[in-house]
């Protein structure tokens, strides 16, 4: 039995209301059997400075990526991670994190590749929870390890590879969710300072620039209302829920946020995240680039 869904009117207004919870809902359900709260941050130390009581840490770099190949963990690695965090296939996982949930959305997306059924995001993430004065703890839980069955990752539905993106140009919609400066190809021209890890600046031809941040409220990082989101993605950008859409950013973390918005909040049916993103595209030989 999944933990009951959040009946909050804002949550219910979205296309897949079972994918989002409010801070108030989470506060009321903490500790409930079948619920695991997972923090995923950009800053690897943030969890240790204090987290939602009982929350486990899932680190995108150390836990979700293969340490050798640039890819996600495989079926064995994923099963071991879930087991160690006390998660079973029936568990409701609520992700939250810093940076308006970039990394939480990324973790949720990776877990979705493995078909874990009940994954939800905490609207507003870590900042909103803390700003509201809700409880935090530095106690690191020691969950009883579970048995999590080995499930193969399915990369065919919500993940896009470079060759697929190449074939997608002119045949589907591309959304570049990076900042306008990254999209335009303007670099940080400062002598002796590290660049962002790509040899070429610009964007994938035909991609529309819709910075991920536009989907979040500035003050608390929560998602904009469904009407505001429709105004941005459908009215302004001309996307429709039936479109075949690929989103990308630098390494796929910010575009996971946009993937979540389009898929779960607006109900788009065919959205893929190109996690290779600019660090792959901007370094690849002979792929087209537009400025």
């Amino acid at each position: 039995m999944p933990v009951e869904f959040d009946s909050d009117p804002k949550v219910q207004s979205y296309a897949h209301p079972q994918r989002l919870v409010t801070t108030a809902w989470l506060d009321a359900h903490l500790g409930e059997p079948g619920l695991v709260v997972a923090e995923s941050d950009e800053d690897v130390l943030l969890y240790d400075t204090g987290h939602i009581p009982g929350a486990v840490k899932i680190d995108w770099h150390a836990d979700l990526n293969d340490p050798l190949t640039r890819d996600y963990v495989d079926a064995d690695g994923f099963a071991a991670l879930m087991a160690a965090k006390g998660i079973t296939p029936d568990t409701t996982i609520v992700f939250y994190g810093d940076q308006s949930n970039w990394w939480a959305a990324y973790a949720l997306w990776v877990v979705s590749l493995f078909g874990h059924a009940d994954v939800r995001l905490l609207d507003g993430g870590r900042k909103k929870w803390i700003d509201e004065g809700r409880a935090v703890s530095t106690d690191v839980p020691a969950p009883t390890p579970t048995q999590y069955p080995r499930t193969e990752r399915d990369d065919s539905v919500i993940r896009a590879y470079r060759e697929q993106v190449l074939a997608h140009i002119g045949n589907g919609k591309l959304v570049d969710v990076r900042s306008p400066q990254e999209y335009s190809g303007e670099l940080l021209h400062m002598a002796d300072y590290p660049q962002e890890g790509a040899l070429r600046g610009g964007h994938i031809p035909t991609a529309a620039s819709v910075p991920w941040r536009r989907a979040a409220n500035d003050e608390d990082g929560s998602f904009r209302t469904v009407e505001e989101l429709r105004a941005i993605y459908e009215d302004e950008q001309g996307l429709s829920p039936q479109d075949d859409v690929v989103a990308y950013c630098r390494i796929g973390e910010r575009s996971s946020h946009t993937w979540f918005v389009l898929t779960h909040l607006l109900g788009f049916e065919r959205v893929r995240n190109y996690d290779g993103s600019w660090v792959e595209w901007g370094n690849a030989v002979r792929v087209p680039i537009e400025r």
Partner: protein
Amino acid sequence: MRDALHEVIEEFADSPKELRLPLLLEFANSLPPLPDAIAASRDGLEPVEECQAAIFLAVDAAPGKPVRLYFDAPLEAPTSRGFAAVLHKGLDGATPEEILTTPNDFYMSMGLDELVTPLRMRGLAGMLARVKRRVAQAMSA
């Protein structure tokens, strides 16, 4: 390399992998606040663009004098604070020469690369590059 910095690097390298992040957090918690005068005026504070959080640094350097380093990093950015504290503990009070001859890749042997992404580690490189540039400017002024 300056002894104090070398000791910091050894402290990380000699720690078991699972204790390196807690150690970095200890460093983060030990970063001294900005002196009141700098905090009030914010004069000379330079943003560290390579960091993914709002980190600022100031360098007080003159020929023949120990170099003083000041960092301002928010509590919500503990990794960047930890990096700033590594540089502070290792290089605050160093001679200009010690700073200018610090290897740019000094942090490679700390054993943090399995735990912290390359992009984050570049934040540390960026801080050192900025400190060096400030010191070099002060020496040629």
